[in-house]
């Protein structure tokens, strides 16, 4: 819930999610979760904009859940499927 809220337009929802996270993991947990959400906000932008492909060693083990979760339909999937 927190990861979704921190990227959303709904500030009230973010405040509620942060409060729940604080109750579960304490103040350091809020900081750590925010750092990870921030890191992947950066990584995702770089990966999408540079068009990097997923390494072959990762493709096999992720095959079942990629299909099931619709990840293969992301526009950036073409950067990997087009490259292999």
């Amino acid at each position, binding site marked *: 819930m*927190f*990861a*979704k809220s*921190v*990227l*959303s*337009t709904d*500030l009230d929802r*973010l*405040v509620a999610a*942060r409060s729940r996270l604080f109750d579960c*993991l*304490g*103040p*350091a*947990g*809020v*900081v*750590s*979760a*925010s*750092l*990870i*959400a*921030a*890191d*992947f*906000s*950066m*990584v*995702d*932008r*770089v*990966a*999408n*904009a*540079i*068009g*990097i*492909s*997923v*390494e072959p060693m990762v493709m096999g083990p992720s095959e079942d859940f990629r299909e099931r*979760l619709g*990840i*293969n339909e*992301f*526009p*950036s*999937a*073409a*950067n*990997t499927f087009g*490259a292999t």
Partner: protein
Amino acid sequence: MSLYSDAEYPISADTEKLHTDEILSYARPGTWGTAAQRTAIAATARKVRSDAGVQESIGDEGLASKTALSKPAQRVATAVALGGVEIDRTFCEKAQADGVTEGEYVEIVGLVSRLAHLDVFARGIGVPSRRLREPVDDKEPSCERPLEAKREGFFTETIPSEPEGGALAKSIFGKGPTPNILRSLSLVPDEARRLNAILNQEYFSVETIMNFDSSSHETLSRPQIEIIAAKVSELNQCFY
């Protein structure tokens, strides 16, 4: 006064130091952009994200209009600021055909992505985005393109892992095979170094990432870290 002195949560000295240096990096000359251009790119990205409602304005968007940016450069900054979901090879090639050099493109991607990192963190801990600095140096960018860079199937050239990438690859990534994400910005080595420094400190290093029993955060287990990462990447529709 420390960067996050207004935060209700405990921010480590290492995070304060890294993020303070990040904020300053936008106001300094880069490899391809002047300090004024980089400040304007950062402010443009802020404005785009504020206008989209995914972060709250702190009123520093005016820095975007202090330096004239080309329309193609603004388009790249805008697309990356919003997640880069719609960016494909055609977009990248058009940006270059419209006058954004390959090095400039990579530098804008790195700069805007790193700013999103800072702004999402600030939002996560419930403080306003940290204010952008005025440009601090009028030195001309070096515009140095590494000779080791080559086509590897991505939208832009990158430096191969060591040993093919030579001493430069070793100085940026370390020895041996390096994941594509850590090499993605390597056409602009300073951007790659900054991306890697952030991930080394806040996520995992190349040496620790495959140790699934370890966690880089005392309060989060490895599965909890990866669930947050996966959810964010789903929202950004990032296949990687």
